[in-house]
C-alpha cells in the first residue's frame, strides 16, 4: 500500500500493543517492546534496500501520480532523515525495555513509539504538503502522549499541556499557510508547488503564506520566540522520550523548514536569507546565555538544543548548496550527539532519580562507563576535532565564509566558546568527589549501556571517517536544490 518501510512500521505498531495487552502483566513490556524492536529493525533493513534504487531515481507511490494525488516520494533527503529517525527509534526502544519496566501501560508506550517513528519517516517521504501534514500530526499526537506518559507526575502533565497548546496552534497555523498556498497555486504537490513558484515575484500573500508555514513548523523546530515549550517538554518527559524528541523530532522539524525553503521557495531566497540570519543569532544567543543559568542537566541540554538549531540556521542563512549540506549534516550529527547525551542522563536518572548538577556531583566515580560516554557526547556538542560535531560545524563555518557572511561564522565560534561554560559545569559535576546518595550508586545495567555504546561508536565513526555521511548529505542537498530532477 505505502512503501515497505511504512507498511512494516504501521503493521508492528498495530501488533505491539495488542500482543502486550494479551501477555502476562510482568512481561508485557518485554513482549511488546521486542515486537516493536523487530518492526523497527525490519524497517531499517528495508531502508537499506531502498538505498541503491533511490540514488538512480526517486521511488514514487502511487506510480504516475498527478498534481492532485497524495503521493510518497522516496528521495535521498527523505532516506537521510528516515535513517536518523529509524536508528534513533531502534536505540530508544532497546533502552526503554529496561528504563520503562516500572511503568504501567507499556504496551501503549511501545505502540506510540513505533507510530511516532512511522510519522517521522512519513514526513521524510511525503511528496505532497498535505500528506506531510497528516504524517506530521501522527508524529505530534504520539509525542504529546509520550511526553505526558507518566500521568502520575504533576510536572509531566503540565509540560504536556503546554506542549500540546503550542504545537497544535503551530500545526493549525501551518494548515492556514497551506490553504493560502493552495489558493495561490491550486496544488499542494511539493514538486508542483516548486515548479509553479519557480519564477514567483513575491507579493504580499506569498510572503504571508511562507511566514505562516515557517511559523507553524517552526514551533516544533524551536525558532526562538516559539521555543518556550522545549525546555519543559524535554525535562518532564521520560528520558527515552526526551531522546527521541531531541534527537529526531526537533531535527525533523528543522528538516521540514529547510525543505520548504530550499525546495519550494527558492525564488524568494533573497528575503528569507536575512530572516534566518537573524533567527540563527537569536537562537544561539538565547540558547547559550540562558543555558548558563540552569541547574538541571536536562534543561541545560534542552537550551543547548536551541543553540544548536541556531547553528543549523547558519547554513540556511548562507543559502548555498554548501550551506544546505552543512545544515543537513548538522541535523544528523546533532541528532546523534543529543540522543547520546539524553540517554546518558537517563541512565543516571535511572540509578539515582536525580538530575540537578548538585545532586549528581561525583557520579563519574561510581558510573564510569556512563560518565565517559556522557563526556564524549559533551565534547562532541562543543565541537572537538575527532568527533562528528566538529565536521558539521566546520562545514557550516565554511559555508558562512563562502556566502560572504563572515560575522555569522565568527558568531558560531564565539557562541561555541560561550557554550563551553555550561558543558564544563556538567563535566565538573561528573568528576567531583562523590558524597551522600551518590556513593551508593552502581553502574547502569547492560541494556541501558548497549544503545549508548552504539551511539558513541557512531559519533566517533562519523568523526574519524565522515566521507560516506558527507557524500550522502551532499547528494541530498543537490537533490533538494535541483527540482528539475524530479520531473
Amino acid at each position, binding site marked *: 500500500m505505502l512503501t515497505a518501510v511504512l507498511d512494516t512500521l504501521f503493521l508492528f505498531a498495530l501488533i505491539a500493543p495488542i500482543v502486550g495487552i494479551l501477555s502476562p502483566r510482568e512481561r508485557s513490556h518485554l513482549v511488546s517492546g521486542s515486537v516493536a524492536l523487530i518492526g523497527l529493525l525490519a524497517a531499517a533493513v528495508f531502508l537499506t534496500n531502498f538505498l541503491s534504487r533511490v540514488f538512480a531515481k526517486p521511488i514514487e507511490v502511487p506510480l504516475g501520480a498527478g498534481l*492532485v494525488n497524495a503521493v510518497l516520494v522516496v528521495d535521498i533527503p527523505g532516506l537521510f532523515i528516515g535513517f536518523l529517525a529509524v536508528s534513533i527509534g531502534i536505540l530508544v526502544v532497546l533502552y526503554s525495555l529496561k528504563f520503562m519496566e516500572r511503568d504501567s501501560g507499556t504496551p501503549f508506550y511501545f505502540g506510540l513509539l513505533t507510530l511516532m517513528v512511522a510519522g517521522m519517516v512519513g514526513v521524510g517521504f511525503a511528496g505532497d504538503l498535505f500528506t506531510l501534514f497528516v504524517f506530521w*500530526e501522527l508524529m505530534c499526537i504520539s509525542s504529546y502522549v509520550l511526553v505526558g506518559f507518566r500521568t502520575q507526575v504533576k*510536572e509531566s502533565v*503540565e509540560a504536556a*499541556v503546554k506542549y500540546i497548546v503550542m504545537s497544535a*496552534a503551530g500545526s493549525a497555523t501551518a494548515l*492556514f499557510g497551506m*490553504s493560502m498556498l493552495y489558493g495561490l497555486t491550486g496544488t499542494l504537490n511539493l514538486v508542483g508547488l516548486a515548479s509553479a513558484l519557480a519564477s514567483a515575484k513575491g507579493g504580499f500573500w506569498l510572503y504571508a503564506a511562507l511566514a505562516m508555514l515557517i511559523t507553524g513548523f517552526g514551533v516544533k523546530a524551536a525558532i526562538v520566540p516559539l521555543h518556550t515549550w522545549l525546555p519543559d517538554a524535554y525535562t518532564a518527559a521520560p528520558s527515552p522520550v526526551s531522546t527521541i524528541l531531541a534527537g529526531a523530532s526537533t531535527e525533523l522539524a528543522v528538516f521540514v523548514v529547510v525543505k520548504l525553503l530550499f525546495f519550494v521557495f527558492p525564488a524568494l531566497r533573497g528575503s528569507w536569507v536575512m530572516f534566518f540570519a537573524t533567527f540563527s543569532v537569536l537562537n544561539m544567543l538565547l540558547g547559550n546565555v540562558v543555558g548558563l543559568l540552569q541547574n538541571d542537566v536536562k534543561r541545560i541540554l534542552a537550551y543547548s538544543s536551541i543553540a544548536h538549531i541556531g547553528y543549523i540556521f547558519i547554513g540556511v542563512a548562507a543559502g548555498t548548496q554548501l550551506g544546505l549540506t552543512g545544515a543537513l549534516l548538522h541535523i544528523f550529527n546533532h541528532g546523534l550527539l543529543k540522543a547520546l547525551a539524553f540517554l546518558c542522563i537517563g541512565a543516571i536518572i535511572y540509578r539515582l532519580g536525580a538530575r540537578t548538577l548538585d545532586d549528581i556531583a561525583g557520579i563519574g566515580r561510581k558510573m564510569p562507563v556512563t560518565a565517559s560516554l556522557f563526556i564524549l557526547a559533551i565534547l562532541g556538542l562543543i565541537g572537538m576535532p575527532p568527533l562528528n560535531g566538529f565536521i558539521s560545524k566546520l562545514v557550516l563555518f565554511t559555508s558562512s565564509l563562502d556566502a560572504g557572511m563572515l560575522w555569522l561564522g565568527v558568531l558560531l565560534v564565539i557562541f561555541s566558546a560561550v557554550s563551553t561554560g555550561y558543558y564544563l559545569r556538567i563535566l565538573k559535576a561528573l568528576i567531583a568527589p562523590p558524597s551522600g546518595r551518590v556513593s551508593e550508586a552502581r553502574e547502569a545495567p547492560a541494556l541501558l549501556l548497549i544503545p549508548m555504546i552504539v551511539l558513541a561508536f557512531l559519533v566517533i565513526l562519523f568523526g574519524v571517517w565522515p566521507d560516506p555521511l558527507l557524500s550522502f548529505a551532499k547528494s541530498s542537498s543537490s537533490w533538494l536544490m535541483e527540482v528539475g530532477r524530479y520531473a
Partner: protein
Amino acid sequence: MISYSIYLAGAAVLYLTGIYALITKRNLIRLIMGIEMLVNAAHINFIALASYWRPGFVDPLATAIVTVSIGVAGCIGAVFLAFAIYAYKHYGTLDVRRMRELRG
C-alpha cells in the same frame, strides 16, 4: 456570488479570535476551543478557495483535504481533553495559572 475576500476576512478574523483565546484565556477548555477555531479558520479558507477555483465547480482536492483534517483535529481535541482530566485530578482546577511546577 460574493467576493472571495469576504471569506478570507472571515477566516482571518476567526483565526485571530483563536489566537486571542490562546493568549489571554487560562482555562483548558477555552484553550482547546481556541485551537479548534484556528483549524476551522483554515478549513473555511480551503473551501472558499475551492469553490472559487472555477465557477460552478468545487475542487475535490480541498474537500478531501478538509475531510481528513477534520478527523485529525478531532484527535488532537480528544488527547488534549484526556490530559485536561488528569490536570484537574492533580491541581483541582482547569486554570493553567495555578500550574506552576515548571518555570518556562
